[in-house]
């Protein structure tokens, strides 16, 4: 019996290590490549570790284009999207979770349908509309279409529904208006869900490549992802070490944010019953 357990424990551990490696290997490869010389990146068989870490690769990457502008654009777009989304999602989710009103189910179904439509279907009309409004030279085409987040509304609604009705009624008896109930009661009680939604939003907009590629036509409004992709071709050869250095720069903020949010996120999934 004991032996049997040991075997399973070993299998379990081995599987975990394999999965871990599968996830972490590309990541380590990226970091390693970002520190190699051009010759090293093209050697066969490939070298795992750089002989001498080439820290200057980062400087090269960041000086080969207007990276300060790219970074600024990425930050402005991502942060505005998150803030606007929270402002839209919280009241929407509160209404869907705690109010009875005419057409509620139809409206919620619309939200879920919106959740399932990929951006690749809507980008042309949206681009034309933005161009029509003369906004292509601004960051707005990267922000306005994402003011609402159907997945976020769905997740927050699930979370709000679990908050007992009596707490809201107690607040009404305490003479709190609906606005206060939302911000002083619902929001503090839903921090894990809010952190999760905000993080998902952050990752998907910070990493977004397709949408800004379509919606921008000048470096003034391009985000980091596009800037880094433009590192790819210089003088006819792929500068993999420089590209990877750019990618490391792109990924670091996500790691930092994730470290801050991970605990809250796990809690959100446990609570909302998705996990």
């Amino acid at each position, binding site marked *: 019996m004991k032996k049997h357990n040991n075997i399973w424990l070993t299998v379990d551990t081995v599987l975990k290590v394999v999965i871990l490696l599968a996830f972490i290997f590309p990541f380590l490869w990226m970091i390693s490549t970002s520190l190699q010389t051009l010759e090293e990146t093209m050697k066969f068989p490939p070298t795992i570790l750089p002989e001498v870490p080439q820290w200057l690769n980062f400087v090269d990457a960041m000086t080969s284009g207007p990276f300060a502008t790219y970074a600024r654009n990425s930050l402005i777009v991502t942060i505005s999207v998150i803030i606007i989304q929270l402002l839209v999602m919280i009241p929407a989710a509160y209404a869907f979770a705690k109010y009875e009103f005419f057409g509620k189910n139809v409206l919620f179904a619309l939200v879920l349908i919106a959740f399932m439509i990929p951006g690749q279907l809507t980008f042309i009309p949206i681009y034309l509309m933005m161009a029509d409004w003369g906004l292509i030279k601004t960051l707005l085409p990267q922000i306005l279409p994402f003011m609402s987040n159907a997945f976020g509304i769905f997740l927050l609604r699930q979370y709000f529904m679990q908050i007992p009705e009596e707490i809201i*009624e*107690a*607040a*009404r*008896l305490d*003479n*709190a208006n609906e606005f206060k109930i939302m911000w002083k009661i619902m929001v503090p009680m839903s921090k894990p869900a809010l952190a999760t939604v905000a993080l998902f939003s952050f990752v998907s907009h910070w990493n977004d490549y397709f949408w800004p590629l379509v919606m921008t036509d000048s470096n003034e409004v391009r985000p980091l992802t596009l800037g880094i992709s433009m590192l790819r071709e210089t003088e006819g050869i792929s500068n993999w070490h420089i590209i990877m250095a750019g990618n490391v720069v792109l990924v670091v903020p996500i790691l930092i944010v994730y470290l801050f949010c991970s605990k809250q996120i796990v809690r959100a999934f446990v609570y909302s019953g998705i996990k």
Partner: protein
Amino acid sequence: MASIEFVNVTKEFDKKEIIKDLNLKIEDGTFTVLVGPSGCGKTTLLRMIAGIGPQTSGAVLIDGKDVTDIAPGKRGVAMVFQNYAIYPTMSVRENIEFGLKNNKVKKAERTELVESISAAVGLTDFLDRKPSTLSGGQRQRIALARAMVKKPSVFLMDEPLSNLDAKLRAQMRIDLIELHKKLGTTFVYVTHDQVEAMSMADTIVLMNQGLIQQEAPPETIYHEPSNIFVAQFIGVPPMNIDELGVGGVKFGFRPESAIGSTEAGTTPFSIRGEVVTREMLGSETLYKINYKDTSFMIKSLEDRFTVNQQVYVSVPTEKMYFFGEDGNRIPTSHPSYSSYIEALRSY
């Protein structure tokens, strides 16, 4: 301070009538206890007074004014919920303060109120703790303090003691009676525990299936129940009831009114039966007595009988109750009353 009045109130949930044409007046400053079995509509009534579950038709008046269009927070009503409904992300202080802040009470006054109320309920040491770190009894006191601090003119309490252990519950019962004396405001208290109802109420409103069965002081409810339901709801164990055998009339007597003896009694109701169970409860003993094809509970201060023993049970005439076919109690002034008494002899 305020009186509360229900005028022809009905309440439906999903087209099902839960409260049927209810009329009730709760006098200013009284301690009124709503009591009844689970699901009879007690919470529903409280929620109508508070304005968080409005009536389907009819009117609720507070101090003679129809409050249908007045928001819950503006009715001068505070409520202690069945599950407390404490704000979990706020500290104890913030919980108590929340209503005051919303009512735009100045900071200095707020602090003073919170301190004095929390001292009164014994929460001073916990003001900066989160509710999740406190015990059930302490949370219950947060809920009380949160209601008290607003100085409401009506205090609604929905089974506030149901989650406490027996000892703490007994203590809180006394505290609440004292609180009512001190504040002198109108208390409406919901429970399905008849001991709580009997011990705290000025007036008991006994409900069943959305209908008021009787509205009277505890003594009256106990001594003059208006029907079989009331007679059997109040009292532990419930009143013994059986067919008299005359025109569908039933008779009843309380276990504590019966006298057990080894000698035959002289009252009209006197039977000889066999003890089938004996429960020694400390100060008193309960016996279940089999008689013919039925059985009666009797309660005795002395522990005199053993199981299988043959005993006589008699009940003084003035402690006998009679109920008509409709379940309502037949008053002693009823013309046939004495004939019912006589009928007991041939039971």
